[in-house]
């Protein structure tokens, strides 16, 4: 668990209700997990009562099922079908519009207006890291995305540590969870035991402290701290998946010609779901639309994916024509070349791409297979036909 420089306390369900109310009262749009369409999705919370009390999830590669839980826990689920990028880096945004005036001049209007002030309730530790990674990608370079920056700077993050990892989670391998790292305003740890249903709360920012001060709360007692610590430590031992314990960046670099890429390409539908659900994938494309008169034009930006043939369309055609090259682009970007570009892994181990791949392709399984292929190649005595 991260240190709690900013003070801590214990709240109960009423305190959680109050948290939603206090954040809304401060003019924020509070987004959190709710049950909808057979999944735990992220949506605006009307009140704390909207939280998925008593719902858990059963995850496998290509499968997601809601499961009722006896214990009434609110946060005993792991990453769902969307991530916070839906709000911070939305699927479609208008960037500007242009109008031709009567005298023929073009008047360009940039999208302005105050960005929404979000409060995200229930940011899992892997997603907390994913947000930090998107911060680096979208605002850390020379050409910052001002829209993203505006939404991000105003967002209040309530992290919730993981106590019930899914069968597809591997945050321990990626060093991102199940305890919350830095970057939160408040961090909660849900505790359910003989002492009751309660949440250890720690503040990680000044605003976090001030919100905490507005909640009905009791001091953070040693028993709750201990229970919270144990539950999170226990979660670390119950990870459903793991990455091979090697340097993944080197693994990707050394297996670019592996036969395994053909194997996975034969199974891949190139449907793009993995990139859309991945909380760090940031790729977009722009589209210009005009109206019938041609006097009004708009530029829209929308999510794009390296699985789309058009994405790598250059004069002469797509440069990643084969499914093999597209799957390899995705995996090597997440696990390898992201380091070269942005100084970190592009994967945080949330498992979404595994769950929401219709055919259940599992990036950890692929990494293990690549690792094994490299090992067996290294073990083989060098011969005339050693692979390129």
């Amino acid at each position, binding site marked *: 668990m991260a240190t709690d420089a900013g003070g801590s306390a214990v709240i109960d369900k009423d305190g959680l209700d109050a948290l939603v109310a206090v954040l809304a009262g401060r003019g924020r749009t509070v987004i959190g997990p709710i049950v*909808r*369409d*057979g*999944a735990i*999705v992220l949506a605006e919370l009307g009140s704390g009562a909207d939280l998925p009390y008593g719902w858990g999830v059963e995850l496998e590669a*290509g*499968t*997601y*099922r809601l499961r009722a839980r006896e214990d009434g826990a609110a946060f005993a689920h792991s990453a769902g*079908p*969307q991530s916070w990028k*839906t709000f911070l880096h939305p*699927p*479609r945004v208008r960037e500007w519009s242009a109008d031709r005036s009567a*005298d*023929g001049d073009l008047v360009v209007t940039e999208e302005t207006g105050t960005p929404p002030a979000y409060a995200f309730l229930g940011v899992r530790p892997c997603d907390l890291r994913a947000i930090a990674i998107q911060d680096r990608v979208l605002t850390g370079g020379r050409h910052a995305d001002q829209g993203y920056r505006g939404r991000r700077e105003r967002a209040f993050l309530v992290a919730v540590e993981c106590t019930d990892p899914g069968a597809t989670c591997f945050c321990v391998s990626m060093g991102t969870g199940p305890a919350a790292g830095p970057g939160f305003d408040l961090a909660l740890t849900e505790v359910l035991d003989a002492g009751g249903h309660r949440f250890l709360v720690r503040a990680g920012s000044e605003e976090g402290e001030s919100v905490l001060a507005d909640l009905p709360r009791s001091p953070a007692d040693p028993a709750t701290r201990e229970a919270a610590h144990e539950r999170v430590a226990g979660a670390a031992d119950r990870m459903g998946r793991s990455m091979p314990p090697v340097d993944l960046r080197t693994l990707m670099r050394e297996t670019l010609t592996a036969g395994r890429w053909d194997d996975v390409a*034969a*199974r*891949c*539908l*190139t*449907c*793009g*779901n993995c990139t*859309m*659900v991945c909380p760090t994938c940031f790729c977009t494309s722009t*589209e*210009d*639309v*005009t*109206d*019938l*008169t*041609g006097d009004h034009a708009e530029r829209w930006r*929308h*999510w794009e*994916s390296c*699985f*789309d*043939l*058009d994405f790598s369309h250059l004069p002469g055609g797509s440069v990643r024509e084969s*499914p093999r090259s597209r799957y390899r682009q995705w995996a090597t970007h997440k696990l390898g070349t992201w380091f070269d570009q942005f100084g970190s892994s592009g994967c945080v181990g949330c498992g979404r791409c595994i*769950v*929401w*791949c*219709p*055919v259940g392709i599992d990036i950890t399984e692929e990494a293990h297979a690549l690792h094994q292929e490299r090992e067996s190649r290294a073990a083989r005595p060098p011969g005339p036909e050693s692979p390129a």
Partner: protein
Amino acid sequence: MNAEPRRRPRLAVWKFASCDGCQLTLLDCEDELLGLAEQVEIAHFLEASSASEPGPYDLSLVEGSVTTAQDVERIHHIRAVSRRLVTIGACATAGGVQALRNYADVAEFQAAVYARPDYVATLATSTPISAHVPVDFELRGCPIDRRQLLEVITAHLAGRRPAVPAHSVCFECKQRGTVCVTVAHGTPCLGPVTHAGCGAICPAYGRGCYGCFGPGDSTNFPAFVPLLRRDGMDTLDVVRVLRTFNTAAPEFDAASRKELDR
């Protein structure tokens, strides 16, 4: 700037073997129709007006598939008098549901359906327009999507490429924020092999996509069909779901034939 009033481009809308649903989509663009009539001269559109002006036309929208010898002649004529020819809908782009005849004996159908089959002169197959003449752009769907139709027309007027992606329905489904019906409910869905364009309507209402926009530009049926089977479809179900409005689209056709050969 505005020296002379610009000549309005001339639009023609043509019908071949079809249900008229795609032409109706154009009439459905109520809010935009007046604006459209200002921008283009609607020179031939029998669904809207019986007045028909002779060609040449700047843009021809063609609905329907080719099913008779006269159709073959007519489409060649239309091509000859059209600067750009855009096919609209599953019939025109893939042959439509009437292409089911391609798998059967048309004479037998005729005998079963018509009192006087000898009055019916028809080809043995239903084929897309592109099988007969070069086509500048194909707009998919059964029926087509009105936003996409307007996009194709406005793009034509502006001289730009229409923003009509050819990737899978899954892209739109995820952008819409729909919970995947296959992953979360075990419902068979053709989204991963289907061309985007509808905005992923069906999954948004909790049902699987049934492929009315035909195949996307990057399909993998050998990997996809086992998924349909996992979710409860047998060979006949798989063949049936592939053999609808886009049955003759090459990818759907090959996959359904392969199923029957198993």
